[in-house]
């Protein structure tokens, strides 16, 4: 049957079991939007293309499915750039479809023309420019295949306007033929035997879990591994939720704002087994001083991650869905008790670190402690909510204080650190998980970066609860200025006329405010019980620091544990 190019795109989405698209129309995608209209394909209109791409990202992170977004040519495409880079840094499966000007106009600096393939080359797993309709079905098939297999990532398809209007006898290819693309599943199992030998020798082992576990959905395997061995676990920001935050073996997040126990364990351990991690600089600090005494073992699907930042003594390359069950199986076969794997003396030491220096606050009594806000929400939701954050102090406090229980329950921009990510990502998550409590922790800086999406939230009746940790400063910038720039608070104040409650109400979101500590519990309880979207503006003291903190370039055991106030 002859079909318009635009209809081909929709048919391909159906074949890939895409159930919703986030997007924003424009000149080059009018035919595509016409096909959406005619087929009644589910689509969410965001208020900015950046909102669309972050929403698709939130949808993907919460479910593991591939998120899809549409944008028009030129500024439509360039507005996606931050969102695509965000997804790329955190390995999120995403297909971004942009319109491009007519074939004869490409390269002529035409109206709303931008070389979006050129622009997104460094921030996509792959991208395509489609100029002939014959290529369209194959490109769509390949794009979804590449986005979701191996180490996932965003793929961009730039489709010329002419292709949407052209016709084709549509057949969706069943397989892809990519000569240069290998999505590795099983690796070399003899490496796992070597890992077990190393584990048996280790006196002070630590397991380090990262985003790869959340992405591959292997938290059950990690939990099994911990059950079998009792080895202490540290987590990266992206690894939170893999095991319950309050599990006795869990020492917490490691790195710049890691817990005392996790950072001390990293410096002192003699074996560090990284699982789906990329040893980011926010984790390692100065890389030469990271786990200096340890044999490093690295489990990852991407061979390029091994030896990129930290030299690995042993590497297990392959999908965690292959390596972790095999590791557990081989460990279970050994006749070794939990105490022997984890070493009682070592476990005693790390537990003492945990008890000795729990997370601290530098605030004098009186004001609302930001950590209390998060602990309260954690208690009210019993750690079962989908937690979304923006970027900054509130993000770190959430990572430290929320009790995560399940994989894919913490959606945050880890690698790129994108302010403005939270609200649209929460929209994406809530749409795909309507039964879940979706809670966004954001700051007075971050929320403004995509606050137009409050309209999307309200108009779609999505019950996301937004908690604005309003300290009237760009908190993380402020903290660095306090600690390293002689308290010269250069342009980090947001004090002004903005009224977040009114802003929310203006767009159809209910607004509540907390100004005194005694109001906190009642308002939070009320907000969580309300139907529909709610924004809670919580006024916090300006000067709370995220602690502990490892100064840039410092060693992980050289933590600032107390803040500098004033």
């Amino acid at each position, binding site marked *: 049957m002859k079909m318009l190019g635009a209809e081909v795109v929709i048919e391909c989405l159906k074949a890939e079991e895409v159930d919703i698209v986030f997007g924003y129309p424009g000149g080059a995608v009018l035919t595509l939007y016409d096909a959406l209209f005619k087929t009644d394909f589910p689509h969410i209109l965001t208020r900015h293309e950046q909102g669309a791409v972050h929403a698709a990202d939130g949808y993907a992170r919460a479910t593991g499915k591939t998120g899809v977004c549409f944008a028009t040519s030129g500024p439509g495409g360039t507005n996606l750039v931050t969102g695509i880079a965000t997804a790329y840094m955190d390995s999120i499966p995403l297909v971004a479809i942009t319109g491009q000007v007519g074939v004869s106009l490409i390269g002529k600096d035409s109206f709303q023309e931008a070389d979006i*393939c050129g622009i997104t080359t460094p921030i996509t797993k792959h991208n395509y420019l489609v100029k002939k309709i014959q290529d369209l079905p194959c490109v769509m098939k390949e794009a979804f295949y590449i986005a979701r297999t191996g180490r996932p990532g965003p793929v961009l398809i730039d489709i010329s306007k002419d292709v949407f209007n052209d016709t084709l006898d549509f057949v969706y290819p069943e397989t892809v033929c990519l000569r*240069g693309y290998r999505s590795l599943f099983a690796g070399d199992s003899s490496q796992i035997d070597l890992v077990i030998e190393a584990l048996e020798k280790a006196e002070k082992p630590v397991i380090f879990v990262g985003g790869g576990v959340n992405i591959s959905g292997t938290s059950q395997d990690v939990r099994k591994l911990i059950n079998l061995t009792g080895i202490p676990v540290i987590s990266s920001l992206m690894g939170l939720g893999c095991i319950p935050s309050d599990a006795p073996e869990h020492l917490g997040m490691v790195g710049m704002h890691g817990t005392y126990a996790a950072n001390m364990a990293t410096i002192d351990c003699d074996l560090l087994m990284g699982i789906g991690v990329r040893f980011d600089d926010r984790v390692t600090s100065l890389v030469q001083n990271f786990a200096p005494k340890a044999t490093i073992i690295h489990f990852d699907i991407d061979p390029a991650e091994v030896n990129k930042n930290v030299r690995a003594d042993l590497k297990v390359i392959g999908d965690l869905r292959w390596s972790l069950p095999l590791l557990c199986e081989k460990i279970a076969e050994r006749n070794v008790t939990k105490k022997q794997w984890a070493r009682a003396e070592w476990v005693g030491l790390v537990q003492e670190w945990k008890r000795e220096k729990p997370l601290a606050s530098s605030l004098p009594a009186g004001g609302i402690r930001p950590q209390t806000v998060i602990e309260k929400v954690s208690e009210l939701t019993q750690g079962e909510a989908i937690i979304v954050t923006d970027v900054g102090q509130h993000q770190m406090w959430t990572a430290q204080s929320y009790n995560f229980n399940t994989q894919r329950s913490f959606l945050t921009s880890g690698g790129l650190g994108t302010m403005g990510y939270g609200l649209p990502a929460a929209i994406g998550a809530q749409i795909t998980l309507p039964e879940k409590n979706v809670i966004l922790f954001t700051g007075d800086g971050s929320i403004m970066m995509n606050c137009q999406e409050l309209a999307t939230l309200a108009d779609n009746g999505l019950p996301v609860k937004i908690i604005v940790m309003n300290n009237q400063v760009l908190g993380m910038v402020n903290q660095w200025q306090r600690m390293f720039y002689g308290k010269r608070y250069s342009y980090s104040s947001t004090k002004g006329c903005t009224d977040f409650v009114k802003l929310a109400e203006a767009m159809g979101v209910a607004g509540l405010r907390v100004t005194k500590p005694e109001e906190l519990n009642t308002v939070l309880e009320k907000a969580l019980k309300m139907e529909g979207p709610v924004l809670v503006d919580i006024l916090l003291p300006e000067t709370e620091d995220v602690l502990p903190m490892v100064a840039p370039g410092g060693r992980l055991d050289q933590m600032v544990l107390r803040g500098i106030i004033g």
Partner: protein
Amino acid sequence: MKYTLAVLVENRPGVLTHISGLISRRAFNIESIAAGPTEEVDTTRITIGVEVEDEFELEQVVNQLSKLVNVIKIANITYVDSIQRELALIKVRANKANRSDLVDVVEIFRAKIVDVNRETLVVELSGEESKIDALCEVLTDFGILEIVRTGRIAISRGPVPAKDM
């Protein structure tokens, strides 16, 4: 350390953008890059000369390039017995008085003169980079107007092609 990589890629639009984009993004130190068609119509071969600190950095270059969807195969032919060549065209000032001296130099280097006029001539030389460097140095005395070099290409000796290495 200097290495030579033979990179086989699918001959598709944008493939050179992906490769050059990756090289610049990861700040790899590329000495030379030369691309051209191969015995297979849909395959392009790119010879990349790369300078790295150590084997770990080389491993990064290879692993990162391998991740590009259009890259089919990368063979490190640094330690393989191979032939490495570069082609250069050099435009030199030459007049009646010194032309025969120039011809002598060209003969010593087994280069060729491919264009002559009253004021200049163009020398063509293929060989290893060091040989071309040496010729350029000698020709400096005559006055070089223009140099164009292809960057090195390489092929292994013996029957095994790079795609099967």
